[in-house]
């Protein structure tokens, strides 16, 4: 019998049974919820962000938005929710209960406080002593909190990343991870700042600041709170490319592990994050949409993938694609291919033709209603890949290597 690939990962001195963690968000609102998630099979969880009791927090009604396609297929999710309203004491009690019931799962306490070093140090001490395995410093929340000097307000200021990381490290008895915001010019610089300040790991990305939409009947921005709104945090499948870019940049720039977050809904998304260097992945939106149960397929899909590819451990794929990510200048300008259309597979829809004609190089010949397949003019084809991407037939358009001139 072939042995099953090992999907356990190491992270800041801990071994986690699988690389799937719940991120700091509504699915980790209470101890009871986290325990249910652990029972469902999640390898770890980051609590919803805990703040000092003196810091007021509000939940707006309502606070979510959605951008989808067709029916309910989610593209982007928006929230303008704040951090946990629950008192520190409640969390301390529940952290103990979770760790007692699930000692082997990775429990991370997420923290946020006003940019005062003492507050961060105190909160880090209390929560780490409650029994969490790690702390995550929330320097990323882009809505609500920054207006009061918290969240992304800190993550956008290197000097605060530095001083507050150091403060948390002083108070903490466990490893500290810094959660970064993508709403900056250079996230790698912020990651390096955290590394220099003593962070044991980073996590990225927090949500991307955006505006999910406007109701064109009522003119209300969404999500509407009595007719008005504010900019909010985007998550879900649409932010995955941003998340992947940030995680890859951080992985290239730092020597501490990075936990990958942003638009992970399936095991395939997770594999992509692992390939570009994420030490593990965190998931929220997909769980909000379909529940903790999605971890079943995440674990099984990853295991089957590794087995099909002949890997013995998930560690073999972590960072495997990273060396292939380089600068534009270093890409081979002499590499030449042209598109090739399979005559037998072509359904004569003309989609490739019209795209190439109006948005490309006029390199496809097509005569509608003649029964003839579309054909590439290899002299004109510049291999931009528009036809390859828009063709509705799998495997109909492929690449043909041509000799360099």
């Amino acid at each position, binding site marked *: 019998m072939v042995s099953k690939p090992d999907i356990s990962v190491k992270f800041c001195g801990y071994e986690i049974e699988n690389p799937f963690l719940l991120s700091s968000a509504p699915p980790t609102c209470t101890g009871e919820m986290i325990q249910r998630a652990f029972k469902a099979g999640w390898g770890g969880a980051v609590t919803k962000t805990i703040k000092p009791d003196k810091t007021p927090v509000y939940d707006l009604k309502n606070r979510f938005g959605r951008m989808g396609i067709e029916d309910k297929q989610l593209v982007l999710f928006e929230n303008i929710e704040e951090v946990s309203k629950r008192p520190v004491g409640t969390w301390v009690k529940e952290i103990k209960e979770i760790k007692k019931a699930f000692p082997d799962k990775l429990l991370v306490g997420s923290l946020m406080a006003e940019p005062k070093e003492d507050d961060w140090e105190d909160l880090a001490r209390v929560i780490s002593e409650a029994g969490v395995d790690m702390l995550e410093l929330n320097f990323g929340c882009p809505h609500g909190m920054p207006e009061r000097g918290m969240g992304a307000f800190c993550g956008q200021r290197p000097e605060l990343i530095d001083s507050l990381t150091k403060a948390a490290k002083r108070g903490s008895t466990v490893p500290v991870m810094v959660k970064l915001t993508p709403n900056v010019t250079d996230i790698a610089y912020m990651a390096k700042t955290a590394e220099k300040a003593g962070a044991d790991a980073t996590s990225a990305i927090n949500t991307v600041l955006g505006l999910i939409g406007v109701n064109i009947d009522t003119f209300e921005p969404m999500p509407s709170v009595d007719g008005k709104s504010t900019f909010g945090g985007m998550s879900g499948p649409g932010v995955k490319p941003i998340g992947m870019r940030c995680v890859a940049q951080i992985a290239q720039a730092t020597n501490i592990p990075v936990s990958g977050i942003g638009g992970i809904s399936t095991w395939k998304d997770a594999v992509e994050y692992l390939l570009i260097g994420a030490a593990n992945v965190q998931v929220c939106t997909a769980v909000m949409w379909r529940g903790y149960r999605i971890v079943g397929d995440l674990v099984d899909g990853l295991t089957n993938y590794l087995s099909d590819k002949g890997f013995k451990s998930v560690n073999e794929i972590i960072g495997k694609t990273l060396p292939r990510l380089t600068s534009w200048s270093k890409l081979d300008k002499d590499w030449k291919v042209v598109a090739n259309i399979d005559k037998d597979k072509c*359904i004569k*829809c*003309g*989609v490739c033709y019209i795209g190439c004609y109006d948005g490309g190089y006029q390199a496809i010949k097509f005569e*509608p209603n003649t029964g003839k397949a579309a054909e590439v003019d290899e002299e004109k084809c510049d291999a931009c890949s528009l036809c390859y991407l828009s063709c*509705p037939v799998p495997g109909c358009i492929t690449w043909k290597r041509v000799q360099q001139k």
Partner: protein
Amino acid sequence: MSGRTHPPILPPQVRIKTFEPYAENLDDRMALYEASRCITCYEPPCKEACPTHIDIPEFIHRIKSGNYYGAAKVIRQSNIFGGECAYVCPVERLCEEKCVRNSLKDEPVAISLLQRFAFEKERKKGIIKFEKAPPKKKKVAVVGAGPAGLSAAYELARKGYKVTVFDSNPKAGGLMLYGILPWKASWEVAESEIKNILDYGIEFVPNKKVSDLKALLKEYGAVFIGAGTSKSAKLGIEGEDLKGVYPAQDFLYDVAKHLQKKGKAPDLKGKRVAIIGGGDTAIDASMASLRLGAERVYIIYRRSLAEMPAVPYGRKQAKEEGVEFLLLSSPVRIHGKNGAVAAIECVKMALGEPDQSGRRAVTPIKGSEFKMDIDVVIVAVGQKPDQEALKSFGLKLKNGLIETDNKFATSIKGVFAGGDVVNGGETVVKATAEGKLAAESIDQFLKGGSK
């Protein structure tokens, strides 16, 4: 890939109790889903297959974007009977047959359902009006207010001509009101589109049978004839003149008049009805017979199901409702008793090789004759124009139809013709397309251009 949307249909035992429509339309959600199945091909075969060449990907794209009125506009620009056609077109042998999705081992996009959706949105808001050219002095007469005549009248009115439409029926609409029964398309659909057309300043003269074209040409610069095919072809067998034998066209006309409370349909309660023929008209007659209370309804067709011209959708509906198909059977004699139908005698047929038209020939099998007790026979083996009316026109005919050149001009200068009276009986959409093209020729003629 995601499959086609199938909106609910009333069960057969419920729907045969009335003549009302029984298939639901797409709601907004289903329409968005179905529209998303369209690949939005470039100059696709579906558009080519539509006789009026509706820009199908464009209107579907507009449904997807939520621009329903814009979708309806795309349809109406090409086809002034876009609503009626959405309900009655045999799409299985037109646009949907050519849908590129068929080559992806998938069902075609439900083009007709999306077209109905766009039309119903339009109807609610008011049918889209297009601009009209400044009035011209010249006048055009249109004989026959069916889809061909009204389509021609509309195009000419928009070009500024003063148009008068004559019809022998009290209402304009032709077979749309006097041949197509409401379960296929509610008459309100056609009526809304007919009103829209007449509102372009067209004069309608009801209950008027035109026979003297010369007299018309004295008053009008040109005449368009869209007289349709109101008569049924005959079987030419013994007993066809017995009481209880109905030509299908007359039968459907009587049912329509009955439903409009302007006439009487045959009483079929508890009767055994045999319909002869395999076209869409035979299917319509069979379903109408069930709705009139017939106890048993048979469709007797001389070829097999594969050769049957009726669209599969209609055949399926009829079969579900209890219509029995007697295939490879051909009537040879209708037996009577006291002057009324008592039985039908048929012979079994054998399929042979395909003929020039591609349809397989059939030959009777000797000694295979069988007899069935029957009360009513409906003959649906083809349609033709009213021959007497055609003769009175004094036009050159061909095979009992008006002969025209490729610009719809007849043998008399200034007289044009199109639709069923020329093509022998096709579809509403084909008639609409021909009326539109004939209007172009009439415009050229009246402008003194080449005929």
